[in-house]
């Protein structure tokens, strides 16, 4: 371990190495298992095993496909969008063997036979939605889907999961067995998958196991300490165009933000991040020759409302109430003051194009407006008592009544389940609580280490359904793949639709984003949900505020989808 021993020379051991503050990745197999989908694993994976397609969101490329990095040309669409034909570029594995369709077939076989063990599997998604998978030759293969999908969606949100895997090295069920076509049969595929998974579940052998020595990525694993430092070394015979410029990348984990920042300040790492509370330190860091730059994510942030809550569900179902609640969240100010400008208002389900991330809420359907919110409540039969207890006075379903299922005298008391460990989040809810209090809406804040764990999607009958609001967006609630459609967030019964929001209109629009090739579908969907408020939109914090040595080039632009391309990095 380099550690502080090497810190004297400012972290980087010589000029061809970069030390990065980075959580230790703990999954190496390109087929991710549930629970191992964290960002660090994705980046780690890309470094060793490139996925078939890689994306960039600057809007230049077709389907957002990054022409340089991707291992294949953009798909050719035929028979009304049902069939996509893909041609591989010339790439080789680190052991010299060419990357062929066989390797992709291999991936497909494994995934198909073990989809239930695959983190990214969704019923109806890949591979279920593939009717036919045919390999033409070493370099070309074609996919025929069950229905006609919006190609952009399919390419961005489905094909993005494909990663070529070295069949010639991995297609066996034991370390000693000879490589064969085992995976071509489902049973064989299961065996192989189990073998590979077992290997992946033994991190201490990551840097020694022969399996992982065959890479397609620009890096190879030089040293791996479970939950400790990880060292990537440049892959000498890397076949891609984006050859690494540095010899070594040292990934160093930290026990916490404070620890990380102490070390950053002491100048012991080349690339780290600035905890929100310490943004005022920008000046100091600059003086120590660091560049501080926020990393905007392809993400939205929101406050989940539990529509199925037996008590408060009925309230959330009232559009006017959701609107007035939304109007009490001063996104611009919170972003500016509490997040020190490192967050930007979320207005709808589709993130603003990266870069355009200004701290204004111009595009938002409901801007901060307590007066309007008050009026809205009063006009719907609520007696608003500031700093008191606002109650429903005229129940009923009429236009100026509280609405369906809201009994007389109902009070507006909500409990929000938030996250511990984020000063900004805590402050943010203090602010929101105080705003709501002014309208007699009582917000109880309950901070837990892992809010997702205790606020599952539920049926009204469930014991676990007692939660009102849930927040897990201290670093962004949801990061989209290249195509920001909401089928997993806001569709009825969608896996991550924790609040059980359900709206036929919304479902229809989401369908459209997936199946019609029509460009405007996404916009329609966005505009509708932005208004209908399936959740309360919250300031969307940057993924992190990076701080890196000014001498370090190629860090920018930081990829909105949270990938890090170390190969682009180099010292001035």
């Amino acid at each position: 371990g380099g550690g502080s021993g090497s810190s004297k020379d400012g972290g980087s051991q010589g000029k061809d190495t970069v030390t990065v503050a980075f959580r230790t990745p703990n999954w190496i197999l390109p087929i991710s298992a549930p629970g191992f989908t964290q960002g660090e694993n994705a980046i780690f994976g890309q470094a060793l095993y490139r996925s078939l397609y890689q994306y960039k969101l600057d809007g230049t490329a077709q389907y957002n496909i990054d022409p340089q990095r991707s291992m294949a040309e953009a798909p050719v669409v035929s028979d009304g969008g049902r069939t996509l034909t893909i041609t591989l570029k010339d790439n080789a594995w680190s052991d010299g063997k060419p990357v062929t369709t066989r390797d992709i077939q291999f991936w497909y076989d494994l995934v198909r036979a073990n989809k239930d063990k695959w983190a990214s599997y969704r019923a109806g998604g890949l591979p279920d939605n593939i009717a036919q998978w045919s390999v033409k030759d070493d370099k070309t293969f074609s996919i025929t889907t069950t229905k006609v999908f919006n190609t952009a969606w399919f390419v961005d949100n489905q094909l993005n999961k494909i990663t070529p895997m070295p069949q010639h090295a991995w297609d066996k069920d034991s370390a000693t067995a000879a490589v064969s076509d085992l995976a071509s049969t489902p049973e064989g595929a299961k065996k192989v998958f189990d073998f590979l998974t077992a290997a992946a579940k033994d991190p201490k052998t990551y840097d020694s196991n022969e399996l992982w020595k065959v890479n397609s990525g620009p890096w190879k694993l030089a040293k791996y300490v479970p939950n400790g430092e990880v060292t990537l070394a440049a892959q000498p015979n890397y076949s891609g165009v984006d050859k690494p410029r540095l010899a070594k990348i040292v990934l160093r984990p930290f026990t916490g933000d404070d620890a990380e920042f102490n070390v950053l300040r002491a100048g012991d790492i080349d690339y780290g991040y600035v905890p929100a509370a310490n943004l005022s330190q920008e000046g100091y860091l600059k003086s120590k020759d660091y560049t501080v730059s926020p990393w905007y994510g392809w993400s939205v942030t929101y406050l989940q409302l539990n529509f199925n809550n037996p008590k408060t569900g009925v309230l959330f179902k009232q559009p006017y109430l959701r609107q007035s609640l939304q109007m009490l969240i001063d996104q611009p100010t919170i972003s500016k003051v509490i997040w020190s400008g490192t967050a930007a208002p979320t207005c709808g389900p589709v993130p603003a194009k990266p870069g355009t991330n200004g701290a204004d809420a111009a595009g938002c359907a409901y801007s901060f407006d307590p007066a309007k919110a008050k009026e809205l409540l009063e006009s719907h039969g609520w007696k608003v008592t500031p700093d008191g207890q606002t109650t429903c006075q005229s129940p009923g379903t009429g236009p100026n009544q509280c609405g369906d299922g809201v009994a007389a005298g109902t009070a507006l008391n909500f409990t929000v389940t938030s996250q511990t460990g984020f000063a900004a989040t805590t402050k943010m809810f203090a602010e929101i609580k105080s705003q709501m209090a002014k309208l007699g809406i009582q917000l109880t804040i309950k901070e837990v280490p892992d809010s997702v764990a205790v606020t599952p999607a539920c049926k009204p009958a469930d014991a676990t359904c007692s939660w009102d609001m849930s927040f897990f967006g201290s670093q962004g609630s949801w990061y989209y793949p290249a195509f920001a459609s909401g089928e997993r967030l806001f569709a009825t019964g969608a896996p991550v639709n924790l609040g059980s929001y359900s709206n036929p209109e919304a479902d229809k629009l989401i369908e459209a984003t997936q199946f019609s090739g029509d460009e405007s579908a996404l916009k329609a969907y966005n505009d509708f949900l932005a208004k209908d408020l399936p959740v309360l939109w919250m300031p969307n914090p940057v993924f992190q505020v990076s701080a890196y040595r000014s001498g370090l080039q190629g860090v920018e632009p930081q990829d909105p989808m949270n990938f890090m391309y170390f190969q682009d990095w180099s010292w001035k």
Partner: protein
Amino acid sequence: MTTLSEPIRPGAVPDQPADADAPVRGLWRQGLAVFCENRLALVGLGLFVLLAGICFLGPLFYHTDQVHTDLTAVHLAPGEQGHPLGTDGVGYDQLGRLMLGGQTSIIVGLAAGILATAVGTVWGAVAGFAGGWVDSAMMRVVDAMMSIPSLFLFMLLAAIVTPSVSMLIVIIGAFAWLGPARLVRGEALTLRSREYVQAMRGMGGTGGRAVRRHIVPNAIGTVIVNATFQVADAILYVAYLSFLGLGVPPPAANWGGMLSDGLADTYSGHWWLLYPPGIAIILIVLAFNFIGDGMRDAFEVRLRRR
């Protein structure tokens, strides 16, 4: 952390036996006298009174809005816009916040400390009296829980039940009783064999009476002294839990929480968010420890003879 409540006997300078005509001096008065001779104890008492006064009475004279945030006045430096200690990240007046937080800290500390002592006393006394296998069984339980670092236990619980003030009290109380339990048991064991208990038995007295009239009154000193240390520790525990992100959620403030939030501001130059709560905690914990020491002297001396 362990309490400092190990017996520190004061010097063996004995008192003269008061002969039969000397003025009558109650045990409490004598104890008080001794307590007052321990300067540190007096300092501690003074500190406590001062801090408690500021926290509980302060708000009556120094009105601040600790309910509504004011994002237009965040991180004001001390003195600015009439905030003697400045404001915090959402515009709360820091001085007022300290008072509020002090209330929580002191209440949690006292309540948890007392709860722990109460539980421990009962447990220890029962074990000490029952003796035999009951005793050893009960004590093994204590050993077991003691062999798990208390902070770990608190963390576990705090991670389970989302801490509110009352919850915090219960959590800490539920695990801090081990020390007192051991202490009281030891006390009970020795007291049980004291000659005056024998004498009472010799008059046909029952075990129950032994406990009521002899053991409890004599163990009470130890217990009270221990309680003060428990309080001090409880306050520290809250601080640690807050540091680990398991403290009381906003807007309920407590010094521990304010301090650990302040840590984030270490380099931001907002010193008024870090040092005041830090110093406050140190002072209150100091105060209780000093008081504890003084009380120990008092309780011991007042019973010494020749």
